């Protein structure tokens, strides 16, 4: 049972991690918590359902469609709810928070109108492929999820720390104006980031749909909350932190259910961040900044 539960935990954790990566990326660059990320993820999942179950497209095409749509959503999000707030004086970190909450409310209710309130089944043959090792069943989807999450994490960290674009991104994150006088097209960088993050949300959405066969307009919220907890846990804006945080949360939720009281499952994420933050206020991988100049 332990091995099965570990597999469950790692699968869940990997999904959390992908969702958290999207949060982290946007936070890292814009210093904004994108509260609509969960809903973009949800839309990604719905596109998956729509393309595979309804239109009968092959899976790879569904992935593509989902990435395209969520990226587009990211683009729209940036244009309509983030860009207008940028560079205005007196814009606290509250404004983008509320603005993206607005988008999340909008998206949730819109997809509710379009797709109906209930769960939609996600049917694809791929999700049925499994291996039996002794009494343990492993689904190919589970492996895929883990692999994708690792690829995304490694890719992102390399991109951020090693490439010029990555540095430009970090510069933009720290100070828009400075980055722009250094020749960074900040508008482009920001838009790109939001698009990438959203596309990753789309990937996560379709993976969740496949793994758990359930897609509903509300799925964004709980996933979003977990994602938030994770980026805090791992340290805001930190790619490695998102991955480790995701896995820790996935595993601890699963193990709590397995060996503890499943009633507290929703609280474990927050109990953990509260504990961690008390020990390391900047998160596991976060860094401190200097004071007193």
């Amino acid at each position, binding site marked *: 049972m332990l091995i099965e539960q570990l597999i469950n935990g790692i699968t869940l954790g990997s999904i959390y991690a992908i969702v958290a990566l999207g949060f982290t990326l946007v936070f890292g660059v814009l210093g904004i918590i994108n509260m609509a990320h969960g809903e973009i993820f949800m839309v990604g999942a719905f596109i998956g359902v729509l393309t595979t179950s309804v239109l009968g497209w092959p899976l790879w095409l569904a992935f593509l469609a989902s990435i395209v749509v969520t990226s587009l959503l990211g683009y729209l999000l940036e244009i309509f709810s983030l860009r207008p707030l940028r560079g*205005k004086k007196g814009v*606290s*970190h509250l404004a983008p928070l509320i603005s993206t909450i607005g*988008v999340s*409310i*909008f998206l949730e209710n819109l997809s509710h109108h379009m797709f109906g309130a209930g769960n939609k089944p996600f049917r694809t043959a791929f999700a049925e492929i499994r291996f039996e090792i002794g009494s343990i069943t492993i689904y190919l989807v589970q492996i895929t999820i883990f692999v994708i999450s690792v690829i995304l994490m490694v890719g992102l960290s390399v991109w951020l720390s090693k490439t010029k674009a990555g540095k430009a991104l970090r510069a933009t994150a720290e100070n828009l104006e400075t980055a722009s006088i250094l020749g960074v097209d900040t508008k482009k960088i920001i838009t790109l980031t939001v698009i990438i993050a959203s596309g990753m949300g789309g990937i996560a959405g379709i993976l969740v749909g496949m793994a758990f066969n359930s897609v509903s307009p509300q799925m964004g919220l709980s996933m979003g909350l977990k994602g938030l907890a994770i980026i805090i846990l791992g340290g805001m804006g930190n790619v490695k932190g998102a991955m480790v945080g995701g896995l820790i949360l996935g595993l601890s939720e699963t193990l709590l259910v397995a060996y503890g009281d499943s009633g507290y499952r929703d609280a474990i994420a927050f109990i953990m961040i509260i504990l961690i933050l008390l020990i390391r206020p900047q998160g596991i991988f976060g860094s401190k900044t200097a004071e007193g100049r």
Partner: protein
Amino acid sequence: MLGELLNPYYLQVLCFILINIMLALSIYVPLSSGQLSLGSAGFMGIGAYTSALLTIHYELPLYVTILVGALLAGVIGIIVGIPSLRLTGVYLAIATLGFGEVIRVLFVNWESLTKGSVGLTGIPQLGRELLKFAKSIGIEPSALGLKNNQFVYLSLVIVLLIIVLFILWFVIRQQNSRIGRAYSSIQMDEKAAESMGINITYYKVLAFAQGAFIAGLAGALFAHTIGYISPSDFSYHRAVEILIFTVFGGSEVIIGSVFGATILTLLPEVLRFVSDYRYIFYGIMLVILMAVRPQGILDLYLFYRLKGKRIKRGTS
């Protein structure tokens, strides 16, 4: 005309507006000291459950239980506020949001006390208790030209209004004083404030606990207004809703909270005619509003302008 005005529906909505104003203030106060605390839903729950359980099990008078509920929330606010000092900005926001969730999950799981997610029914309603009291001292609503029902809601509204006015009075006076200046200076630059001789630990915890107290009070009053509570009343949605009240109205000035809570409580009621689409509207509206007025509807500059001082806001 009076009968129309005293329509219980309007009065009921008014009750929720008043409670929501308190909740908005419970975010505003810590925010005015630079702490974005999203724990209000949790503190509200603590106040609500405490007061409800005390009235149900011990039949204590409401004014006692409501006060105990608020105080307990305040005390827990201190306990939570101290470790939270180490956190700032979004870290604090999410940790306190998490605190609220933990509280909710506790209500769900602590069944022997809270009846879990089924919730507590039969909580005495404040207005009705007032009616009973009025009758016991020989005041009949009919003597005032009111129906029983009108009396119930009218008295409820009046009590809530008095409490809200009191809190407003308190917060405004506090704000225009040594305490308020300390809060704002911490909000704007914590380290600089400390160098100016301000004990930031003390003031931050104070503001945090005041917010918790107000939220607890609002929660207790909520329980005795609606008569039924369950853990889902104190969920993430509530926390976010409260935050939106404050930010929508304008988090820089206190009337922003009042204004935001009022408008946003009315909005779903007003938008009932588009019922199916109202949350879609609501979402769009938030986005537009933030784009147009990122400081919320009312901001410091507008506020000063209204007071007749000529100050202009620059942009950079």
